[in-house]
């Protein structure tokens, strides 16, 4: 196998044209990167083109922040696409060309690394490095000295409230989404126009968290009792003679109100995955259970659920991670000012509003540690499914 590949690529690898072309390509990519790094790169390139074409007035306008800005942005986009796609192609071609010239034994060992190296490097730069500096930053005060204060402060009142809220989110929103999703999946399995019904449950998933929050803010809207209630919920609520309730801003009712938005969004996801899993349960098993005298409830709880356990774990962990990191909904409702603050929102506030970078880093670390076991569970479940 290895010998064959060596023969096949032999002529390719030794071709000097490839090297020369790669070199030219690298130089072009270098220029491209230079344009991309310059904050006014697009304008400047287009201005140079205009200069070449003799349109010095247009070039001057562009250089001063006017003129064909849209065209300049389009050009910049095209350059980015070219450098991005072309650059990656170039990188792999050049690297594999070089490696192909090595002795076969060494080559087989190095070649896989050539292909994962870019991913590894990017992950290190954009994930591992920031993660490590974040953890280190959580142990430093504003002047850069070592301190445990950032962590100690997390045990004080407001932060305990925040952690409590996150736990409630984790339990209620996750259980609500998965439970409802499972229920809907099981019930819809038996109706005629299943696809149509599923569309209604699934559609909210296409809405962004912020968009969904805006929608629900109208549902929860509150007006003084003397005014007409345009909020859907209060319109219904007051029609029974009750006084209106500020659902989104009154603690503790605002917690379930916010979680409902998440459940509304995530139920569709749980339903789709679980519905597919339920359909995957073989008819023979179900018939066997029925022959053995099991009723519908027993079949659901004792046959179907154990059989789709893997899918349930996957869905649960995926939603749990989303829930732990919840940010958009709380931020959009009122910024967490009504005892509904959560870790991710507070992390943002501490960082950008309070200038407490160390405490923001500690909160980020807390979130990371909290997500970790859920992720491991998720990966294990994946592996088990793969093994099956």
């Amino acid at each position, binding site marked *: 196998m290895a010998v064959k590949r060596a023969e096949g690529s032999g002529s390719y690898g030794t071709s000097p044209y490839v090297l020369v072309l790669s070199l030219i390509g690298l130089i072009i990519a270098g220029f491209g990167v230079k344009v991309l790094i310059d904050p006014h790169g697009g304008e400047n390139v287009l201005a140079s083109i205009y200069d070449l074409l003799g349109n010095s007035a247009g070039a001057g306008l562009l250089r*001063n*922040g006017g003129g064909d800005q849209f065209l300049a942005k389009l050009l910049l986009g095209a350059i980015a696409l070219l450098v991005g796609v072309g650059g990656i192609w170039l990188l792999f071609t050049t690297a594999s060309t070089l490696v192909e010239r090595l002795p076969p034994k060494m080559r087989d060992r190095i070649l896989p690394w050539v292909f994962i190296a870019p991913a590894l490097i990017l992950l290190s730069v954009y994930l591992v490095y920031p993660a490590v500096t974040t953890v280190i930053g959580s142990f430093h005060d*504003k002047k850069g000295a070592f301190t445990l204060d950032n962590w100690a402060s997390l045990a004080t*009142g*407001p932060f305990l409230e925040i952690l409590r809220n996150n736990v409630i989110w984790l339990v209620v929103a996750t259980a609500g989404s998965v439970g409802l999703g499972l229920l809907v999946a099981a019930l819809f399995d038996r109706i005629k126009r299943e696809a149509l019904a599923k569309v209604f449950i699934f559609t909210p998933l296409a809405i962004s968290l*912020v968009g969904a*929050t*805006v929608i629900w803010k109208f549902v929860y809207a*509150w*007006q*003084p*009792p*003397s*005014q007409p209630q345009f909020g859907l919920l209060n319109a219904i609520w007051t029609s029974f003679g009750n006084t209106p309730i*500020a659902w989104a*801003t*009154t603690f503790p009712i605002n917690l379930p109100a916010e979680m409902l938005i998440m459940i509304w969004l995530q139920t569709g996801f749980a339903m789709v995955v679980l519905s597919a899993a339920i359909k995957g349960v073989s008819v023979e098993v179900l018939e066997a259970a029925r022959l053995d005298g099991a009723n519908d409830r027993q079949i659901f709880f004792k046959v179907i659920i154990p059989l789709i356990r893997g899918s349930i774990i996957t869905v649960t962990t995926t939603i749990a991670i989303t829930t732990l990191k919840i940010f958009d909904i709380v*931020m*959009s409702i*009122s*910024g*967490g*000012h*009504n*005892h509904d603050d959560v870790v991710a929102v507070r992390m*943002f*506030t*501490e*960082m*950008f*509003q*309070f*200038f*407490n970078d160390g405490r923001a880093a500690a909160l980020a670390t807390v979130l990371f540690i909290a997500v970790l076991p859920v992720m491991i569970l998720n990966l294990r479940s994946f592996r088990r499914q793969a093994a099956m």
Partner: protein
Amino acid sequence: MSRAPYWPINFMEETSMGNKPSRMAGLAAVVVLIVAACSPAASSAPTGAAASNPPASQGAGASAPPAALNLPTVPTGYTELDKALTKGADGKMPFAGTKVSIQTQWTGGEGEGFAAAIKDFAAATGITINVDSIGSSHETVLKTRIEGGSPPDMAALAQPTGVLAYAAEGKVVDVATFMDTAKLKAEFPSTIGLTTDGAHIWSIPTKADVKSMIWYPVKAFAAKGYTVPKTWDELVTLADKIVADGSHPFCVSAGGPGTATGWELTDWVEEVLLKTEDPQVTNDWVSHKVLFTDPKIKAAFDKVGSLLFKDKYVDGGGQAIVNADLKTVMDPMFNQDTAAPGCWMQKIPVWYGPDFFPDKRTNGGDSKYKIGDDGDIGIFPFPTISDQYKGAEGSADSFMVLNDRPEVRAFAEFLATPEGLEGWIKSVGVLSPNVKVPAEWYAGNYKLKVANAIATGATAIGFDASDLMPPAVGQGSFWTGISDWANSNGTNTDATLQAIDDSWPK
């Protein structure tokens, strides 16, 4: 605004003037105004004259058009600015072709105003000014750029606390190293005007806001025979009369837009404090020498509570305050074109205006409602409470220099001159914190005239206290606490004050 502006849902971009919930100390503005208006015109007159006579021939060189330019006369008293405005030996403007970037939170009307202010400077010096108007996510973007090591050359900020935080990290250029400190201190006499730390000057205020004012429907007042209250007692009497007539006196919003909640209510408390106690109490409150649980602070809370939480004074009570959005809170005042207002008075700073009026807000264009004593919506000074303390509340946006280059210095120096804001004052209208700005520049603008009168009538100017507190309190626990307090209609004052005290950073 000290908004916590970073959120996409925060629609502040539309309401250009709205982005300043928590502005910093209006001291500067006030002081400026006071000085400009009351002091024997010795200092301001010459500047004014100079401004109205364009310095075209002297500084701007042959390229300057003959129309009145918003430029200071050379010598300006600042080194780089003089250089930038004077043709070099080679016949060219020395900084022509250079670029200066500035990031601001000013969008909409404020953005237009700033563009008008710097247009002539850019034309005369040949310096290209790149303005990044980020709007509501300004502070987030700015922090990312500064921490990331590629800051804009200059940046505006609403809170001195933010400026000081960047200065402590060594990210800000001390303008005292290249500008005439004595001149700066003379033109921005309040220590709050300039953000200082010892001998360092970290930022210079650009635009000021006066907060001690109440907006009201002029025609409805006249129709009902109501008169503008001058004292707190008259205010209460008027409010009672309005309630007796079946309406609600006040509109107050502590619900945003976006995450900038609570500041309108904290402004009420700060205002009452400045009008009942020595201004030193406010200063000590900001530095936590006076606690929130101090009887004087509690008295201010109670006084505000006794007014706003009284039955029917605000339609829906404290809960309505917490849920009302700044953008829409004053809409009831426009009921039947202000003939039958659903609320009659709103305490809101001078930056408020037609951008928030219902017709312009929903349809764009010009609002049909005119601001003025003979228009639809008028402004009166916040009533006095004590005879002794007649302080007023204000705030200001300031700018800091982040990259030290000659052309950046020149632009910073230009913004510090009265003419640096002239284009904005005379177009969109804004208050300058520079005391050398002649009062007649404001004459044509009702809002600015009223603000000027309020500032000159005040015994002291206090800056927005919550903007000077540590942000974790001023934009954090103070806002959260005051929402709790309003939600309970002022029944949990002690617990609220204690909770805010407990949250003060150690």
